[in-house]
């Protein structure tokens, strides 16, 4: 048996478990419907956005908006209920009979739970975007990629936390509840952060928030939501700052996942 074969066996088994018929089909249907139903080109007109780059951002944002919650539900289900319940029921131990290291086992699980979901999400979204507005996709691909990167950072951060909680508690339910609270909590948190920033005339809270969820700094950069609370003199982020915050947020995500790998490989007693 080659070195890669056990890994592929585990990956295939995980994909089979995570995307049992008709889960994959239902989510593909919802992604497609959500993408088209909530795409809003009119928003860029009504808000009077001038530059074509900002229009590309605004449209991408509207496209992501509805489908992101479906993506999050799918990922949370796979990580909390997939991996979490396997830990809870001890099913994960059966995988240890494969000649495969623990980190490779976790990689296969995450590739199935997060990688495949993301592939489906991005595949449908970009294709739908290309059907709706090929001109925008071709001419502003960089802006689109940056918007997706900024929007996906926070869900991935929550996923990493769910993973850690599920491994620590060996059950998925609590991790799932925590993930949902965190996802919706950031909306309220952002509102408070912007108000604090406006009241204290310090953008520090918003900067911390942007490090966790760089979609806020991107919104500020393009003059979207949140911008009215902050005067341009308080914080007017540049493109390089936006990129830096996105990289920073992914560094946090990677660090949390590395922590998960270390815990799974060395600390988790099964």
């Amino acid at each position: 048996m080659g070195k890669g074969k056990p890994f592929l066996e585990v990956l295939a088994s995980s994909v089979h478990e995570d995307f049992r018929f008709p889960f994959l089909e239902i989510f593909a249907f919802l992604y497609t419907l959500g993408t088209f139903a909530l795409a809003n080109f009119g928003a860029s007109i009504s808000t009077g956005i001038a530059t074509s780059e900002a229009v590309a951002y605004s449209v991408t944002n509207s496209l992501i908006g509805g489908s992101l919650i479906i993506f999050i539900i799918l990922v949370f289900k796979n990580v909390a209920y997939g991996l979490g319940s396997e830990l809870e029921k001890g099913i994960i131990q059966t995988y240890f009979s494969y000649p495969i290291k623990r980190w490779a086992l976790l990689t296969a699980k995450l590739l199935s739970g997060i990688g495949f979901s993301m592939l489906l999400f991005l595949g449908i979204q970009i294709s739908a975007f290309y059907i709706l507005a090929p001109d925008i996709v071709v001419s502003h691909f960089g802006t689109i990629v940056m918007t997706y990167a900024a929007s996906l950072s926070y869900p991935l951060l929550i996923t990493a936390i769910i993973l850690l909680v599920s491994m620590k508690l060996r059950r998925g339910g609590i991790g799932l509840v925590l993930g949902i609270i965190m996802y919706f909590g950031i909306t309220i948190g952002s509102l408070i952060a912007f108000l604090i920033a406006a009241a204290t005339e310090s953008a520090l809270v918003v900067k911390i928030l942007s490090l966790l969820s760089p979609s806020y700094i991107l919104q500020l950069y393009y003059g979207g939501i949140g911008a009215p609370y902050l005067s341009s003199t308080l914080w007017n982020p540049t493109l390089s700052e936006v990129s830096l915050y996105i990289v920073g947020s992914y560094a946090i995500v990677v660090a949390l996942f590395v922590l998960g790998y270390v815990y799974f490989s060395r600390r988790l007693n099964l």
Partner: protein
Amino acid sequence: MKRLMNILGRGGTTLIAISIALLLVSLLPTARIGGADNPTRLTPDTFSPIRNIPWPIESFYDAQLTPQRELEMEFSATSSAKVYLLTVEARTVMDWISEQKQIDGRDYNLTSLDDFLEAHPDLIGWESEVDKEEIQHTYSVERITNATIILANPTAENVTVMSEIRLMNSLAPSEKVRTISYFAAPIGIVMAIPWLLDTWKQRKKKI
């Protein structure tokens, strides 16, 4: 072999699910969100953008088109006329003409419009002759753009052009989405049939 059948099968059922969603999107009716339907009277060798309020008040009809917003147009005229759909606001055309001619007011001479069109041929989104017979056209775009409709009378007699402009909103370009759906569904069915048959046989065996 079995794994390949599974992958193809699930790929097929996913394609079918996407096709159903696309078909659903294409079937959702479009909604009228704006438009204009005033008759435009043109004296010989003049032009006029379609107006919201009749002359002399300067209130030109402009539309903002997006891949989700298209213009449905119907025209007929008492005599021969021309219609242009330009991808700019009417004010841009009028201001350019005023600037070129160095006049304060508005110049509705056809030669001025011809000068503009000659200088900006890329702004002509669609053009057509209008006669007594009604013509219809739907103009859709793949990017966000302005649109204005200009009527011109190149003849030596007065012309009245009846127009009905409807700005329609939809979720997606119906034709395009439906075509993709029609292509994807059969491919998905072909891919899924062996897997579905196999799953059905296995269930039968279990029973």
